[in-house]
């Protein structure tokens, strides 16, 4: 199979009537990279993926695959493979016919088609199912047929539109590592659309977070989590405590009664993002004094809601065998490491 090409999106804007769906989107997907578009519903992530496939034309901007400008090409001339959210398998054709369809369009010989179909069926471990119809397969099998049908044409880019959302939780986790493995093996460029941050973190090399038609941040999963660029990214990727306040001249963050020294940031209004697991509890003498409002025992950790200098914070403490939780009303100290907080503007 070929190595594929990168994808370049330059200042793409798109809308229906007066509603803007995508606003000045620019990004680069490197060759053989596994890239994810992450965002809530209505963020424009699926629309952007469909523009790459040719379903819709941007109002302005360009889309390039490798060096080729495909902005105005119809879908059938693009050679990008798309796996649809509902799989879109044709119910009147067998599995083998579904997979052969794209090869027939490429005018391959009978023998070549037969060989490629059986190769790709072996790749997705469905050789025994060639003559079944889609309705006779389970959800996971249908998903793999959809993938095989796309991979068999050796697309330059593989587009995946929430491909796992119709599977149950256990299968979803299996399939995502399966997808990751296949992508590595084939060395193909892949773009994956999802609203599930855990899924994006698990499969993607890099993630673009979208909200309201704009790119909020692009980066590796760990980078996005630890150094979110704004409040939206901080809150969308996992749970966080956001405190609005100001940084004064000597590096102290102030929000009414709450003060935290040693913040690395220019003076001015700012917000702190502190992850629940980045704080620890101590005896009342040390740290900032706080009072437990309530707690939830969640197995691997206990989630406390505490009142701290007029702010309600969520703190996760790992649970160890045999340790009892602190009941509501307990007064204790909270330790916050200024190096483990993110400063947002």
């Amino acid at each position: 199979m070929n190595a594929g090409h990168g994808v370049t999106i330059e200042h793409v804007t798109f809308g229906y009537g007066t509603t803007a769906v995508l606003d000045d989107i620019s990004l680069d997907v490197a060759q053989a990279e596994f890239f994810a578009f992450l965002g809530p519903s209505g963020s424009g992530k699926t629309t952007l993926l469909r523009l790459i496939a040719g379903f819709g034309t941007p109002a302005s901007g360009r889309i390039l695959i490798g060096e080729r400008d495909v902005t105005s090409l119809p879908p059938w001339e693009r050679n990008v493979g798309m796996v649809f959210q509902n799989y879109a398998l044709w119910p009147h054709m067998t599995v083998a016919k579904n997979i052969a369809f794209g090869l027939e369009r490429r005018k391959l010989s009978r023998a070549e088609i037969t060989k490629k179909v059986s190769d790709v069926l072996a790749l997705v471990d469905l050789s025994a199912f060639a003559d079944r119809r889609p309705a006779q397969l389970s959800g996971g099998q249908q998903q793999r047929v959809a993938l095989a049908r796309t991979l068999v044409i050796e697309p330059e880019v593989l587009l995946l539109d929430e491909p796992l959302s119709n599977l149950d939780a256990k299968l979803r986790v299996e399939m995502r590592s399966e997808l990751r493995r296949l992508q590595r093996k084939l060395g193909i460029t892949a773009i994956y659309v999802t609203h599930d941050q855990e899924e994006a973190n698990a499969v993607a090399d890099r993630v673009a977070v979208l909200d309201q038609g704009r790119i909020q941040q692009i980066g590796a999963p760990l980078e996005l989590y630890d150094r979110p660029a704004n409040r939206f990214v901080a809150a969308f990727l996992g749970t966080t405590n956001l405190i609005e306040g100001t940084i004064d001249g000597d590096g102290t963050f102030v929000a009414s009664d709450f003060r935290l020294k040693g913040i690395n940031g220019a003076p001015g209004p700012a917000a702190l993002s502190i992850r629940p697991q980045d704080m620890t509890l101590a005896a009342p003498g040390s740290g900032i004094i706080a009072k437990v409002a309530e707690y939830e025992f969640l197995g691997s950790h206990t989630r406390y809601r505490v009142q701290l200098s007029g702010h309600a914070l969520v703190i996760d403490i790992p649970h160890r065998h045999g340790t009892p939780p602190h009941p509501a009303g307990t007064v204790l100290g909270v330790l916050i490491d200024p190096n483990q907080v993110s400063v947002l503007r």
Partner: protein
Amino acid sequence: MADAALAVSLRRLSLAARFGASPAQIAALAFVALFLVAFLVVPIVRVIFVAFTDRDGSLTLVNFQDFLATGLLREAFWNSIYVAAMTVALASLIAVPLATILTRFHFRGAALIHTLGVIPLVMPPFVGAVAMQLIYGRNGSINLLLNEWLGFRIPFMEGLNGVIFVEALHYFPFILLNLSASLANIDSAMEESAQNLGTHGFTLFRRIVFPLALPGYVAGAALVFVKVFDDLATPLLLNVTTMLAPQAYLKITSVGITDPMGYVISVIMVLCSLGAMALSALALRGRDFATLQRGGGGLGRRTLGRTGNTIATIFIVLVLLIVLSPHIGILLLSFATVWSFAVLPDGFTLAHYGTVVRDSLPLISNTILYCGLAGLIDVVLGAMLAYIVLRTRLPGRRLVEQVAMSAVAMPGLVLGIGLLRTYYDVKLPFSGEPFATFWFMLVIAYAVRRLPYALTAATAALQQLHVSLEEAAENLGARKFTTLGRIVVPLMTGGLLAGFVTSFATAAVELSATLLLVTHAPDAPLSYGIYVSMQSAAGRGPGAALGVIAVVVVAIATYLAYRVAEHERGLKSRGVF
């Protein structure tokens, strides 16, 4: 690079790109629109125009004053309203209990009710009317028996009663089908949550079940009203002329197509049909609920007790007997030597079928030719329009769809008058014959009148086809045309075939427009032949034989459509082993 940029800007400027449509799709929409304008809009507008003009061609209301001043026409108007309303009432008396038994209870005879829902539709009411006279008429089987044993008669078929009886027996399935679909679509959770909140019995019915089922009932009732209002052949065959449709027909055929009164009656009929449709749409605005949740079943069913079961069975058997009586009657009549003033025919013969084979085969081949062509036109136009409406954003597509659907509310008689008036002066190239009386005009009239059926079937078929199935094909390198041929058309086959058969079968028994447009006997279709035969006592036998043939043709077509639909469903859900 510069060329590419130019191409991009050109593409963005073009109409096609702006509305997500190719030039071929634009041409297709224009073609459908042109067909509808030429053969539906212009003829109807022409009828309206004539109704509002006097002899010199200036606009006037004098024709409507004449209508109101004529006692006979006022009576005809009220009779038409009365017959249509009473038919809805009588049909409801039959259909509502059946729908309730079917959807609310466990009942072993459910298949029987399903059959009941189809049997009447395969026989045109004007065929049934003659048989009903023989069975329920003043000197029909039932009244002869009643008179002999009990000494009295029941005027089932006297005057307007006869029309109401025949029409109700023919059209009650529209209410049955719509109402039971509506009942079956109520999620059991709707009822259960009301019960959970402490509601039961009549309150539960009044507050939850009735409001949710109402849309189906009203839709069915409105359809029955409109159909009865514009039925021409049934009153004519029962010798009832004081209704609007027969009056318009008599004016046009006896006085000529220049008499304005026929047009005035036409306009009033159109207004009443549209009024009934608009009223039902108004009553249902914002009330068309779909409550069925994923995985949810229909309403909870209860078990009937022994008494309930007995009552239900008796009711269904009684309805079945009455509903089947025209079919039995026409069958008997087609084999009867003489059947007059007797409970049963005097003797049996095959002679009528012999007569049919000797004289009437052209009628049958004409019907197959005309209705086959009309069905074909409908499927092609319906599929094109459905695709454009659902898959493009072309401006005006919804308007064209609405115009096509409005044919449902256009009385066939009015369309016939309009076509006759509009195309009488258009002469054919070689023969010089008026286009209006050329046999192909029948095909066009059928195609226009039945287009709503094919359009509905095609739309339903396409709606079930997720757009991603087409996008997947394009993504894998198939152009629009290949996608149509390999994906869309194969997956719509069932729906399109169902549309074809419905158009074909209903066109085969059309008589309102047919009566106006047939001018040469050799060009006449089956329905016309039956009508003419039934006019004379001697022609009744062969007429009945033709009627039986028509019923068989329609029944076979309906059965085939049903089988195809079932096969399709099986293909999609289970696959074929």
